[in-house]
Every structure is written in C-alpha cells, then in structure tokens.
C-alpha cells in the first residue's frame, strides 16, 4: 500500500497536465458550448513553438504560404535570434501569445460562424481545427520529435518524497501546483468578476445575456483566448513529463482531460482540476503498481490505463443521465434533412459496370486499361472508405448518434478475422505465427463481423442515456481504450511486439480475389471488382433501410425522442439496432481493409483516423448514401488525394491542412455536405442537356470557347507550380481549361453581387449581349 501511494505521487505531473487541459475544455464549453476536440492540438502547437524558439530562435506562424510564386510570399517563419536560442522567459511569452493568436483565430474563423450549427457541425469544426493544426505542425516543424525542455526545476528530484520511498522530480509537483494556481485564478475570475458573471449568464441563457446588455460573442472570444492560453501553459510547462513531442500525442491525452472536465460537469474549474490530478495519479498507480500485482488479470495489463478515462466518463455521464448542462443557444439547429433515396436499381446498374471498367479497363484495353499501381490502390481505398462512411451515415445521419468509434469497430472485425484464419504454423516469411483455429476466410470474416456487432451494441448502451456531443466523448474514449485493450494487447492478438497480423488472400471458387495484382502491387482488378460489388450491396442495404419502416423509425428518433416514444417506437431498441447495423457495416469495411492491406496493425485503426473518417463522411454528406460515396472519393489516400499528390508533388504535404480547411468550410457553408451541393448542379445541367439543340450549343461555344482555348494553352505551357511532364500534359490542358472557366465564372459571380445563381448571372449576361 505504501508503494501504491508513492506511485500515486509520481502521477502528479501527468495529473497536472490533464488538469490544465481539462480546465481549457471547461472554459471553452462555458464560453461557446463547444467540446473542443482540437484542444490538444493547440497545446501541441504552443509546445513546438516554445521548443523551436529555444532550438533555433524562429517563430513559425500557423499558416501556409498559399501564394504560388517565389517573389511575393506570406511570411511564415520569423527569425528572432539568427539561429541561436531565444531567452527562456521571452520564449514562454511568445508561445503563449501564439496560443492567444490561435484562440482568437478559432473564435473568428471557426466557432463564431458555427455558433448556430447543429452539435455535429461544431464537432466537425473542432476536428477541422485539429487536422489543420497537426498538418501545419508537420509542415512547419517537420516530422521530428524533439525532447521538450523542462522549464520548472529541471533535474531537481525529491529523493524520498514524504517518506514513501519513491523519488519525485520537482517538475511533477510543480506542474500540479501550476495547474492548481491556474485553476484558482480562473475560479476566482468566474466566481467574482463581472466577466465571470456574464459568462455564467450567457452559458445559462444566451438570449438572457443579450437582454442584459452583454455581447455573447465578445464573451465567447475572451473565453476562447483563455482556453487557448491554458492549453499553451500546459504545452509549454509540461516539459519532459509526457516524453518526446509529436503532433498527435497531446490529442490523445485529451481523453483523460475530457473525463476530468466531465467530472466537473463541464462547468466547474476546481472540480475539473482535482479530477484531472486524480485521474493522472490513478493512471500512474494502475500502470506502475497495480498491473504488477499477482491478482491483476494478465489480459488487462496492456489497456488498463487507457480504460480508466472511459470508465470514468461512462459512469459520470450515465449516472447523471439528462442532468448535464444543455446550453440554451439562441437557436438550436438540426442535422440536415435526409433525402429519400430514389432510383437505386438505376444507380447500381450504372455504377457497378462503371466500377468494373475502372478496375479492368475497356475491352481489349481500348483507350483505357484500368486503374493500376497507386491508382488501383487509391480506387479500392476509396471504395472501402465509402463502406466505412455508410456506417456513419446510418448511425449519425439517420439516427443522430454521434459515434467516433466506427473505425475501431472495423478494426475489431479485422483483427478477429485475422486471428480466426491463423493456424499457428510458422513459415519462413512468418516465423512467429499466431495461434488460431485456421478457419476459412468467409467464416472468419463473418465471425469478425459478428464480434464487431457485439462490441458495437455494447458501446451503444451508453447512448440510451447519453446524447449528442457527450456521446461523442464516450465513443472517443472507447476508441482509445479499444486500441490498447485489444489491438495492442498481445495477450489477445498473440502478436509479437511490433509485428503485424497476417491476413490470407480471399478466393472465390478457386479464383484469387485478393488485392495482390500481377506486378506484385496491391492493385488487383479482381479485388477492386469485389469491393465494387460489396459497396453496391451495402449501399442498397442502407438505402432500403432508409426507405422502409426502419428508416422512418430511425428518423423519428433522430427528430424527437419524446415524440417517437409517444408514437410507440421503442427508442432504446431502435438505437441499439442502429448501433448493431452500423457496426456490421463498419465490420465489413474492416474485413475489406484487412484483405486490401494483407497485414494489419493497430496503426490502421488509431482513434484519430476515426475522427478524420467521420469528418470526411460529414464532408461528403452525412445524411445520404451518395454522401458516403463522395466521402470515400475525398478520403485520405483515396482517388482525389492521390490525384492531387500526383499532379503536384508539393501539394502532398498540405493534404491534412487542406482537409482541415475543407472540413471547417463545409461545416460553415454547406452543412448538408458536398453531395447536396452537386445535386442541383447535376440537375441544372441535366435539364439543359435535355433541352439543348444546335443553337444553344453554338451559344455556349461563343461564350465559353475563347476561355477554353486560353485554358488549354495555359495548361500546355504549364501551370506553375503544378507538374508538367509528358504523361500529364493532356490532363494539364484539361485542368487549365477547367481553371479558366472556373475563374471566368467566379468573376461573373462577383460582378453580379455574389448572391445570384450562376444560371441567372449567365442569363443576365446573355440579355446584355
């Protein structure tokens, strides 16, 4: 017992960090009702800023230079001390000012425009900020993972802290004290100042605060800045406590911080501070002492620490049920409408053959020989991404349950299938073969999906009492816990540390439909066709569910749980059904990912990749099947990403940044997602094509022809900085023509006042001519 207490004190440093992060989460929630999933990324940026100021004396602004010229540039790096380190205290001040900048930017550019968005829209905004900051950090600081400098009493250690026989670095105690001081300051601020009173009034009722003469927006700005500064303090002062810096680490540590913030009901700073320090100490005791005890179950050893926040979060939220703060916003917005799917058979009849052509090429390889190499891989990645997004469409789009754990559930299916196909026979390629029953792939795949459904339903139980963005917090904690409890747990996977689980190649009546193509690359057209057919089946299933009684009940629950219950809809059963079905879809996506990758590791299912998938599903259109397919096309390593990277080598490193910006813009400008954006355009041009005769075509030629010619020439000469080798020249000409038309339309749109439809603007121009 004495040991346990000694170890608990060791956890004070980590606890102090968690407490500081929790404080920032509480402040941001008080100020604007957002659970800020990007909080860790803000801390990360401040930590990198501090450490690079101390390394080479440069400030790196959280921007990219978007001007494609070498002469005119947007400044990104500012050198202060010509290569040498900056003074410690100056560096701290600059890093915290950087946090102020980021906090203000988040308010003005993201959360102020999103203040009336549906809860999911705000979540997507936060994920967008997270992606943006991580992407920018990768560009600005490179992929290096420096050891952060300790600011608080570096090197000093209590050799025998309070007589419990354990040495304790001064730094750990000091960080806990810093957390307590910050907490005290903020507590005082919210309790006794006019600003605090106004914030509390606005959190209770925004309208009331307006009537009292306070500006909720200015309050939100102040609170965002305070939240960002606490993140900055956490990032700068954490020193060596959490180990080497990298762009994602603090984002992972957001989960225990969320637990601490929820203990304080997202409103009490002192309780959040105490809870954070407590969680840090508890985790350290479990990690260092409890897992070493003989009574501790072996299979739990790897994941116990990460399961603590999950257990705390579920308990706190479940017991409080509805009691958590629900902010009274001026206007509560709903998720976008979910369109009724039509002509499903027609879509299948067009897209399956189209998919087959993309996979195999035209007969006799006439003009087009099929997608191969990286294109083939991007194609199957797109198809599998769409499968996973269908699971989000069903769960979040139809039933309104924000789950961030779907990718991890896909991982459960994949890992379980891999284990079921293993037979423990070592081979030269795989000398440490995993033991297992050695089942055939279809049986193993079905078992994997069944286990995924079981896990999904269990994770759905909290949803019976926890709603909206709080459910998102539970699922994010569950995703982190699954990672260490299952994927990284050698007791369950039987994998050697660091090795991957092998997945056999699937066969269909003797034909190899695995992903390995003829040249040894993962681009087999047969596998692509397998994916196309699976996706078509899954899209049909989801569409049919939406069209039938199940879909009506799903949407009824999404719209109004009380009214659904009064309509005789069993709300808990409907939710669990949705979790089960969504998990089956995710499980299928996981199985297909396993076949595509041929060997899987826990890195395939990291929880923040799951966040990004949710965000891409939202980007595509979270409420429709077509949105899932578009989301798949946009997804990381999908067709659009690979095309972009191919056409412009420099663009590749900006993919996460552009993804983040795209998410924020979609959440603000077009919450129904891209698919709804294209629908009217396709309809407009479809109707035009039906009506158009020679005269109309000639008119278009006169209007657009010159621009197309200019664009073609521009593309042929080369669009700086886009690449222009021989292969891509025809593509570049097409791109040039497209860009020329785009710029032309943009100019017309701006000249017509920006509010008119494109069609109307053209009609005006025609009338003038």
């Amino acid at each position, binding site marked *: 017992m004495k040991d346990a207490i000694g170890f608990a004190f060791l956890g004070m440093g980590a606890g102090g960090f968690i407490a500081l992060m929790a404080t920032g989460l509480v402040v941001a929630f008080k100020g604007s009702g957002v659970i800020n999933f990007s909080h860790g990324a803000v801390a990360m940026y401040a930590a990198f800023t501090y450490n690079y100021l101390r390394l080479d004396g440069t400030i790196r602004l959280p921007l990219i230079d978007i001007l494609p010229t070498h002469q005119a540039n947007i400044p990104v790096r500012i050198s202060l001390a010509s290569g040498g380190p900056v003074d410690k205290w100056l560096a701290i001040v600059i890093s915290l000012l950087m946090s102020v900048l980021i906090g203000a930017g988040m308010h003005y550019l993201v959360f102020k425009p999103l203040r009336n968005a549906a809860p999911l829209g705000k979540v997507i905004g936060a994920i967008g900020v997270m992606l943006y900051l991580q992407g920018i950090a990768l560009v600005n600081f490179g992929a290096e993972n420096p050891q952060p400098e300790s600011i608080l009493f570096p090197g000093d250690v209590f050799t025998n802290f309070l007589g419990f026989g354990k040495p304790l670095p001064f730094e750990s105690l000091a960080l806990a004290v810093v957390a307590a001081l910050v907490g005290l300051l903020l507590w005082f601020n919210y309790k006794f100042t006019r600003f605090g009173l106004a914030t509390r009034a606005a959190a209770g009722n925004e309208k009331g605060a307006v009537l009292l003469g306070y500006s909720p927006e200015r309050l939100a700005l102040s609170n965002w800045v305070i939240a960002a500064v606490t993140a900055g303090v956490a990032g700068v002062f954490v020193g060596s406590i959490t180990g080497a810096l990298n762009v994602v680490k603090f984002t992972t540590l957001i989960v225990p911080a969320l637990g601490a913030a929820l203990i304080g009901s997202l409103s009490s700073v002192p309780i959040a501070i105490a809870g954070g320090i407590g969680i840090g100490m508890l985790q350290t005791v479990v990690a260092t002492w409890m897992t070493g005890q003989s009574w501790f179950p072996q299979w739990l050893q790897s994941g116990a620490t990460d399961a603590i926040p999950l257990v705390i979060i579920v308990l706190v939220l479940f017991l409080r049920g509805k009691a958590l703060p629900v902010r009274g916003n001026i206007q509560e917005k*709903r998720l976008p*409408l*979910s369109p009724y799917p039509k002509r499903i058979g027609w879509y299948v009849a067009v897209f399956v053959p189209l998919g087959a052509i993309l996979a195999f090429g035209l007969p006799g390889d006439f003009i087009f020989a099929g997608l191969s190499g990286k294109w083939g891989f991007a194609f199957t990645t797109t198809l599998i991404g769409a499968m996973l997004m269908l699971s989000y469409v069903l769960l979040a789009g139809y039933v309104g349950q924000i789950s961030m754990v779907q990718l991890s559930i896909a991982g459960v299916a994949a890992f379980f299938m891999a284990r079921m196909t293993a037979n423990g026979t070592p081979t030269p390629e795989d000398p440490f073969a995993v033991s297992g029953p050695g089942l055939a792939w279809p049986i193993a795949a079905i078992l994997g999906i069944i286990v995924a459904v079981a896990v999904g339903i269990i994770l759905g139980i909290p949803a019976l009492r926890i709603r909206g963005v709080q459910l998102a917090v539970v699922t994010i904690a569950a995703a982190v816990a699954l990672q260490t409890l299952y994927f990284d747990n050698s007791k369950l996977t039987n994998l050697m540390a660091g090795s991957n689980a092998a997945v056999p190649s699937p066969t269909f009546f003797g034909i190899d439909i695995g992903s390995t193509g003829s040249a040894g690359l993962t681009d087999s057209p047969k596998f692509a066709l397998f994916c196309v057919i699976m996706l078509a089946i899954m899209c049909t*299933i989801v*569409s*049919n*569910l*939406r*069209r*039938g*009684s*199940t*879909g*009506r*009940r799903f*949407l*009824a629950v*999404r*719209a*109004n749980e*009380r*009214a*659904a*219950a*009064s*309509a*005789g*809809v*069993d*709300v808990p*059963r409907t939710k669990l*059904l949705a979790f089960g*079905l969504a998990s089956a879809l995710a499980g299928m996506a996981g199985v297909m990912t396993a076949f595509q990758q041929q060997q899987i590791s826990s890195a395939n299912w990291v929880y923040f990749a799951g966040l990004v998938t949710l965000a891409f599903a939202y980007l595509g259109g979270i409420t429709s099947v077509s949105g899932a397919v578009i989301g798949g096309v946009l997804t990381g390593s999908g067709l659009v990403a690979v095309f972009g990277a191919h056409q412009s080598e420099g663009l590749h490193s900006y993919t996460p940044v552009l993804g983040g910006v795209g998410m924020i813009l979609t959440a603000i400008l077009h919450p129904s997602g891209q698919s709804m954006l294209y629908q009217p355009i396709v309809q407009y041009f479809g109707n035009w094509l039906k009506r158009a005769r020679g005269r109309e075509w000639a008119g278009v030629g006169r209007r657009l022809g010159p621009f197309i010619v200019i664009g073609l020439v521009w593309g042929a000469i080369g669009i700086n900085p886009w690449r222009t080798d021989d292969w891509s020249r025809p593509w570049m000409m097409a791109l040039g023509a497209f860009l020329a038309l785009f710029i032309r339309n943009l100019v017309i749109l701006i000249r017509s006042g920006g509010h008119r439809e494109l069609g109307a603007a053209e009609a005006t121009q025609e009338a003038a001519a």
Partner: protein
Amino acid sequence: MSSLLQTHDLTVSYGGLHANSNVNIKAEKGKLTGLIGPNGAGKTTFIDAITGFTNISSGRAEFNGADMAGVTPAARAKAGLVRTFQSLELFEDLTVWDNLIVMAEETKWWSFLADIVKPNRTLGVEEQAEWALNLLGLGEFRDRLTLDLSHGQRKLVSVARSLAASPKLLLLDEPAAGLDTVESQQLGSHLREILNHDITIFLIDHDMGLVLSVCDYIYVLDFGKIIAEGTPEEVRNNPEVIKAYLGESAGEMQASEGDAAARALKGEG
C-alpha cells in the same frame, strides 16, 4: 359505466413541490372529457404522468382496467393510450404521410431484415392513416415536410398523427394553443367527429371557450389539485373556478356573470 382511464390519488412531486396531488379523474368510454386550469396548474405534468413521461410519486393510473406502472411510454402508445404534445414535437424531417405511418405501423424485431429486401411494405396501415389525414382535411399536404406547414396545419398534423395509431383514448395537450378563433372552432368540430369513430378523447386546455363548448364532462385543476368537476354548465357556474381564473375579486361576481367572464377570457394565455 365503463371508464377507460382512471387515476387513483395520483401524485407527482419534484423535490418538495407537488405538481399533482391526489388527482382522481375518470375518462368515460366514448365521451369527451376535459381538464382545464390556468397556466402552471399541472396539466401537462398530469398528461406526462399517465403516458409514462414522468414518474408517478404515489397513487396509480389505470388504463382499460390495467395498472400502467412500469409500462414504457412506447408500450402505452401501442396499447391505445396516445397523446399529442403542446409543443407539437412532430418528426420534422419526415413528410406528413410518413409522420402518420410511423405512428400507425406495427414493427417486429425482424422488420429491418424485411426492409433490406423489400422496403416499401405498407404493413396494412395505409387505410387508417388515409382516414386520419382526410378527417382533418390534410390530404393536400400528404407529401410535404411538416417543416413547411403553418402552425395551425401542424397542430392538425399532430392530431392526425395520433389518430393514425388507432387510439382507444386520445390525450390532447393544449391543441388550441396558438390557433385563431376560426381554427379553434374547426378543431372543436373535428373533435366531435372523432368521437363518432369509437375513440375516447381527453382534452387538456386552458381555452375555456373550446373546453366548455365541446366537452361532456370537465375537471378543473389548480395548483396541482382538482378544485371542481362536472358538466360544462356546472363548471361554468362554479365560484371556485371563477376565482382560480379571475382572482379573488372576480370570485364575488354573480354566478350568472360567470358565463360572460368565461367568454371574455377565451384565448387568455
């Protein structure tokens, strides 16, 4: 006399506050029973308690002879105890027609599997939904989203939706709130027509005019207690009721003036 709904000393407390205390009411089969009371009297709490949306602190509610304790709201609805909400609570993303169908259809645990194969099954409830839609004159709005309708139309949709469930007892929570005089009168005549289709109605409202004109029997609730009950004529002339509605001084008015007072108060929010 057979009563479809009966409460026995029904009490609902929030902390020390008794929102309903010892409420005893009966809704006779085939009749239109009314419950009136000023704002904050506990009317909605009462409807929440008998439909299972609020826990009963003591006493019990019997529907169709069965104690409703421990029965979920969804199961009560399926048993024929169907309610509307004061705040409408329509399914705004569904069409008017789908709003009715959700209410009407009976699903089994395997329905989702059937949907995957054949989504457009109607489960034989179209007739009931069609009837409800036409009864309230909503035929032309069939394929519109409820989002696009006017407030009065949405009120009617909420009544039609409840009727689609083939209720035994229809509990209407302030259906006249926000309606103008003409719409309110139309609603009254719709209610009388519904009664002819073997559906019992329990109407909750604070619109004296509507309640006095359509109900067969009326209970008056104030501060969570039943202060009066009887036929419209009896309630109209009850000095306690006038006092609750107009305050002490008005209570001194002659009983014969109560009628005029009630008319003057019609639509009082």
